[in-house]
């Protein structure tokens, strides 16, 4: 049952990504070149609705979750490495599979590259855990806990920020 739900969730997500055109190389590199903000619009819209949805479920006591652990070493170094590679590929892990499915078969090379990266990570894993994780390791920490405010205030702030960003994108035709 878990597997079937994974498949169905993936199919809906894949269809949404495809229809929003965020699977395309041009949209991904376009965002990094600051000439087409389609993927940012998609992501921020998903974040606003998703954060409202899951916090509503949490407040109703239906689910509980904790954010992923915060480590400055892991997220700053890992995030930057990801970003550098992302500009070379024009795809991220999720969109690569979708792009292959919409016929852009050149994405087979980035997919192979990422599989190779998976192997490299296996070998680097002990070093990363020993030397990078301890740098600024704070465990699971949410912005609302950090600031000591309601999660709804944080979500509202993100939504307002996104609204002005969206308005700027539409004005500039990005």
């Amino acid at each position: 049952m878990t597997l079937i739900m994974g498949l169905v969730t993936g199919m809906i997500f894949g269809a949404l990504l495809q229809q929003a055109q965020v699977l395309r190389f041009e949209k991904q590199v376009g965002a990094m070149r600051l000439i087409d903000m389609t993927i940012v619009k998609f992501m921020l819209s998903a974040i606003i609705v998703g954060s409202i949805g899951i916090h509503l479920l949490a407040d109703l006591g239906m689910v509980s979750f904790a954010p992923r652990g915060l480590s400055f070493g892991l997220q700053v170094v890992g995030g930057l490495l990801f970003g550098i590679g992302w500009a070379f590929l024009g795809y991220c892990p999720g969109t690569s599979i979708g792009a292959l499915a919409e016929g852009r078969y050149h994405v087979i090379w980035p997919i192979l590259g990422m599989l190779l990266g998976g192997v490299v990570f296996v070998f680097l894993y002990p070093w990363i855990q020993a030397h990078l994780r301890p740098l600024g390791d704070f465990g699971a920490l949410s912005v609302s806990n950090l600031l000591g405010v309601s999660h709804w205030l944080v979500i509202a702030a993100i939504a307002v920020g996104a609204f002005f960003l969206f308005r700027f994108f539409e004005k500039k035709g990005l």
Partner: protein
Amino acid sequence: MSVQKWYKPYLLGALAGLLLTASVGIAGQFLGTSTTFPRAATWIIDMVGINLEHLEFYQVHGGSLTGAAFPDWQLLFVIGIGVGAFLAARLSGTFKLESLPPMWVERFGDRLGLRIVHSMVGGVLVMVGARMAGGCPSGHGISGVSQLGVSSMLALSMFFVGGIITARLLYQGGKS
């Protein structure tokens, strides 16, 4: 190809947010994809008969970071992305075979070898970076930021900082 309606990325993104909510509420699963790549890589290595089980990575969380975890929710989710994208592309007439990305060719020329080099370098950086940071634009970006995680906001910011700087270096002088 018709021009994309301006509201489409917003509307479809909002639907992805609803999908995340439903997935968390019904299946208890946050959307994410990158863990499946090292799992698939180790699965393939096992298939070709190379034994790496002495490595620390294979012992973490009872081996759940390796191909031993297959089949799991996330593997089916990743396969589902392919199936869903394929169906949507065929039904909307936007399926298109492409041997190299046009924007890349415009900058670097019709050079498959160079594209493969970019893909290997970029692929290793992307996957090592994603697994090091603990997620990719779906796991950290959409799922993690929705949970208001400081780690996810930091990672997502770094994705774009690294991406914007590198894209500027790669594509400077290119047509915008």
